[in-house]
């Protein structure tokens, strides 16, 4: 698959179809494959594909330093590709000005893949590889099921302990392809909306607000959990809201090109039973 990927990239750059390819580079065994930016056909051989290609590279498509490089091709896994669908629905990317290289993925390892629903990209301009085996259906309760089985008091204690380690480095926000705001609400200081302090109050306010902003938008790539240097399972917050979105609106972000985003559309069928 790596060779086919390199061939495709070589051709795209040689034919000037794109100016830059965002892909994964080489890394030593056991360490994540770093994102690299290939601009010359002869550098296509620097690209790699392996089970350490964790990062969701769609995050770079909204960065001004990357946009400045010109028309891009991006290497995505099935999970990452869902972000492209949401970004297009939210008018953040022009899909026609983007070449998507989809990699059929057998998984890059738990916990990132625990909730994976798409192993083979479906909307890519070119899909490389086929999936060796269809993924095994989830077996037994997942992390969210186990958490939701606890009482509210136990869940509060769980999150209090987890958030106590948060140092507000914002790695969760920066790796998230859907946290593209130029000025995040937590960076607003006239007036202050969320305490910048890494205190229980400041940390609860930050993580709950971020989860709300990702409700019906999070595509479950799990990058927030992977990036957290304190090991906080942040994805659980988003999964909880994703589950509520499915239950109440039958909507899974990034799964269906025709489906209108929950927050971007109104339907007479929308539930109103929460209105007292």
């Amino acid at each position, binding site marked *: 698959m790596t060779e086919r990927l390199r061939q495709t990239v070589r051709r795209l750059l040689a034919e000037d179809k794109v100016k830059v390819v965002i892909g994964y580079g080489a*890394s*030593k065994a056991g*360490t*994540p*494959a*770093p*994102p*690299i*930016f290939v601009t010359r056909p002869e550098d296509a051989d620097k690209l790699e594909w392996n089970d350490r290609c964790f*990062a969701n590279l769609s*995050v*770079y498509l909204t*960065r*001004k*330093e*990357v946009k400045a490089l010109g028309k891009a091709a991006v290497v995505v896994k099935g999970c990452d590709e869902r972000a492209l669908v949401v970004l297009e629905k939210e008018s953040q990317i022009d899909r026609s000005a983007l070449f998507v290289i989809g990699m059929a993925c057998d998984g890059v390892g738990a916990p990132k893949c625990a909730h994976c629903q798409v192993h083979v990209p479906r909307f890519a301009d070119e899909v490389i590889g086929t999936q060796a085996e269809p993924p095994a259906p989830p077996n037994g309760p997942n992390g969210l099921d186990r958490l939701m089985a606890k009482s509210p008091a136990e869940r509060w204690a769980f999150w209090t302990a*987890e958030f106590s*380690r948060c*140092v*507000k*480095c*914002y*790695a969760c*926000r*920066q*790796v998230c392809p859907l946290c593209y705001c130029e000025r995040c609400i937590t*960076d607003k*200081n006239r007036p*202050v909306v969320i*305490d*910048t*302090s*890494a*205190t229980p109050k*400041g940390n609860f306010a930050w993580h709950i607000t971020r989860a709300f902003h990702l409700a019906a938008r999070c595509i479950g790539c799990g*990058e927030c959990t*992977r*990036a957290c*240097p*304190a*090991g*906080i*399972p942040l994805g659980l917050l988003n999964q909880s809201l994703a589950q509520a979105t499915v239950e109440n609106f039958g909507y899974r972000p990034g799964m269906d090109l025709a489906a209108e985003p929950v927050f971007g559309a109104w339907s007479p069928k929308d539930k109103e039973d929460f209105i007292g």
Partner: protein
Amino acid sequence: MSTVLSVADLRGRIAGWIGEGKVVVAPVEVGGRLLYQALSAASQAVFDARRRPANSIKEFFFPRHEPIFRYRLEGKEIVLSDVAPEEREQIVIAAKPCDAAALPILDHVFNWDFEDSFYTARRARTTVISLACAMEDDACFCTSVGSGPADEAGSDAVLYEVEGGFEGRGITEKGGGLFDRTATVRERCEDATVRSLTVAVRKGEIAKYLEGNFESPIWKDLTLACLGCGACAYTCPTCHCFDIVDEGNAAGGARVKNWDSCQFPFFTLHASGHNPRSAQPQRQRQRLFHKFLIYPQKFNAILCTGCGNCERNCPVGLGVRKVLEAIDGELRRVDEKEPVQA
């Protein structure tokens, strides 16, 4: 005479310190990570010379959040009050030498034109017991910045891994109260712990290179993947930037010191709207310049212990070592073009 201490012996000592009302900090398994934390029980402490915690010990001297004074409104008067200092003694045990070595480096900036009494008080009431290191991974480069796996800088005592457990050696007066200062264990252990590390950054030349390369394509090429989070700075033993904000309401509140990072775009945003570091490569360049040029010029000390936490914690695998390696490569290329006369 030396004594070999088992993990159980060390935990016994910790239990004693906790019993005396001291705060004891050690590496702990939590959230799938090894993190330095204040212990609630001695059994939590992990003694492993082959692993590195994902955070650093700096937060026990320079907390991520610290009130510096409080205010309250009484009628038409604003009443200010000092924050009561924490008076409990603190012991940090099983610190990596690359964490302990950061303390004498940080002492410069916290006692420069102004003495930061919060920091210096914590330094004075804390004893640091490091555990000589026996690991090396791809992110490590301590020997490249003048440190090493058995560096004693910043430590009051050092534990060395020996057959059957650990031996301690006191270094300072404080450490001498806990472990024998005449123990010779270091000499026996050094061969086993000092390894050759990958990066051969030539100390004197890095600053010179930076001075001549403020504008260089190297910054953009190396740092385009940087996503601009603070994981590197916040897990770095030496990064020490903070922001001062007022938190509270009209009735009362506090002025607090919170960690900040030069990797955030708002770190340098002016009230006018101008931002002198408007793009991520400029912010990465600043981080390197501060560590290897500005701080050494001012305090004659490199603001880096080579611990590698920046790279290990970076979501996209960047880090100081990678930039240093690239600079090292540039310097070698120059050498090849202009051979040094013998």
